[in-house]
């Protein structure tokens, strides 16, 4: 009756117990204990440390419990949708000196799970972000000579914090990415990286945004406002589209770059900060200087270390490495299982001229992966912008100088092919002999 009641109570709380002999064989056990045993083993003839998966290898430990009288426990063992706390304790009976109990702790485990799930998710995300910052240089993906050159310069510049850096390149070439790489390659995670697009704000707002303002400096300036230069103290200020900075502000920025001191709008007090300034533009700043739209002195101040980012069309097969990177990225973001690019898709990407550069490639891959869940991306999955081809070309209204154009095309092709005449010929759809003839014609060495 007592055994029956005991078994009933244990079953009610979904728990189990067993008594074990000195030779570690099962003595008595409650019905639910059988659920903890390996199905293929006989509970009556198999030692308990061969019978219960969780006890494999624990013979010595069990003997120690009998010998020392100290219990042994295994907290939170998950089995068939339940969680148990296993306690192996001495039992005051020479024939069965060991008592094994599996207490049901499912409710406790569920609560712990709820708390830790969120905590761990945050921890993992933070660690991944931090790793991304530390591994910023690996954000520059590609093996082409053009990119290797950029990587070398970035490595050199990462330790030099005081000199302003000017990034030039077509739109979408990754100027913002390179600015971040430069910042994270040398800065600790706590040092700020502040980015502002000079074309995005009207002139009136830009000054207070950059330099800050004191209360009453202008209508609605109801309190002191910290500018981005001050916010970037100790870190990096990245001024994108610097060519759009109004001339008046260019003078103020130049003064700041030379003295590292500035005066917030409406203030009589100067402030001093220690920042690295990175500026970027997709325009030819020298031409902007010639046209009087950009101050020459500021240009020289910024142009100490110019870095030209190559367009994607000059990065040869890097386009495929970048595409693979975006596939990995969007697989995680969209929870997809895309394996990669099919050969025809690779061909399509390699043939495209990428006027929008890496940004265009990223958009192209994102679009393709929105509509596909798994397998390989085929050529038809990739939608590319229609770009001007040789047959679309029409004579400008003012006419052109054919020889000059031909010479320029030859020089461009040679440059893109890294001086390799065979590859340059292929880019222009010419044979090697034809290109040689034309190069001689224009005295191009």
């Amino acid at each position: 009756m007592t055994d029956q009641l005991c078994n009933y109570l244990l079953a009610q709380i979904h728990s189990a117990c067993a008594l074990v002999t000195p030779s570690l064989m099962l003595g008595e056990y409650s019905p639910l204990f059988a659920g903890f045993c390996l199905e293929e083993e006989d509970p009556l003839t198999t030692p308990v440390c061969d019978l219960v998966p969780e006890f494999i290898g624990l013979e010595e430990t069990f003997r120690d419990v009998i010998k020392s009288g100290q219990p042994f426990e295994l907290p939170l063992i998950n089995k068939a949708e339940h969680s148990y706390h296993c306690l192996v304790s001495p039992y005051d009976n020479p024939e069965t000196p060991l008592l094994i109990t599996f207490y049901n702790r499912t409710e406790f485990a569920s609560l712990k799970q709820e708390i830790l799930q969120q905590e761990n998710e945050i921890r993992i995300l933070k660690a991944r972000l931090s790793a991304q910052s530390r591994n910023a240089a690996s954000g520059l993906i590609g093996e082409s000579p053009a990119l290797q050159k950029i990587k070398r310069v970035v490595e050199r510049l990462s330790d030099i914090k005081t000199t302003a850096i000017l990034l030039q390149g077509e739109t979408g070439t990754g100027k913002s990415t390179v600015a971040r790489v430069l910042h994270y390659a040398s800065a600790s995670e706590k040092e700020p990286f502040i980015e502002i697009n000079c074309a995005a704000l009207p002139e009136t707002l830009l000054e207070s945004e950059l330099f800050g303002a004191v209360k009453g400096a202008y209508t609605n300036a109801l309190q002191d406002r910290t500018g981005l230069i001050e916010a970037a103290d100790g870190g990096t200020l990245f001024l994108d589209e610097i060519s759009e900075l109004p001339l008046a502000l260019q003078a103020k920025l130049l003064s700041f770059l030379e003295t590292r001191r500035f005066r917030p709008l409406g203030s009589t007090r100067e402030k001093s900060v220690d920042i690295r300034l990175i500026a970027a533009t997709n325009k030819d700043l020298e031409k902007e200087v010639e046209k009087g739209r950009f101050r020459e002195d500021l240009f020289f101040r910024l142009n100490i270390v110019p870095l030209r980012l190559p367009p994607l069309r000059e990065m040869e097969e890097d386009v495929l490495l970048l595409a693979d990177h975006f596939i990995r990225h969007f697989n995680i973001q969209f929870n997809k299982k895309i394996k990669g690019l099919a050969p025809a898709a690779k061909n399509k990407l390699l043939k495209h001229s990428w006027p929008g550069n890496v940004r265009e490639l990223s958009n192209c891959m994102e679009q393709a992966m929105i509509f596909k869940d798994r397998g390989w991306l085929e050529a038809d999955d990739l939608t590319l912008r229609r770009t001007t081809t040789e047959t679309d070309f029409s004579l400008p209204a003012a006419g052109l100088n054919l020889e000059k154009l031909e010479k320029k095309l030859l020089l461009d092709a040679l440059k893109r092919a890294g001086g390799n005449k065979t590859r340059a010929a292929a880019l222009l759809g010419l044979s090697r002999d034809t290109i040689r003839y034309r190069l001689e014609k224009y005295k191009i060495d």
Partner: protein
Amino acid sequence: MSPIKKKICLLGDVGVGKTSLIRRFVENIFDDSYLTTIGVKVSQKRISLTGEKDVLMMIWDVEGFNKPGVVSPNYFMGAAGAMVVCDLSRQESIENLEPVIRDFHRISNKGKIVLAGNKADLVGASHPGRLLFRETARQLELPFFETSALNGQNVAACFETLGRKIIDPS
């Protein structure tokens, strides 16, 4: 013939993919939703090693080491070996390999160890995580595998190597 039963533990930082490696090895499935493991779960897998008796591996999926000392050392008692796992995309999980191994060896000083640098599918060939993992494994003089529970890369090889080391310590 009944197999030799051996206990092995999968240890490592939280979220490195220990549960996913076991599911890939035991059930050949992968699910990328993340559910943190609380306590332990024991799975079984019988493996045949050439020229050896079959081994029935009792694979302990031990909850992640989110901070030192939180995982019960009793989980390591009686283990013949451990696979210590890190996430190649998370540097701190690689840096934590050594303390985890130390905790394990404190309880099971003869336990064999292999290292698994998981989530190899997430990192490029020259990712700093790969280089740090290889360097760490060389310094610790332990066998190591770059694994992916997602595509199965090196998963079976990693478990089988541990199985061999347990059966034939030489």
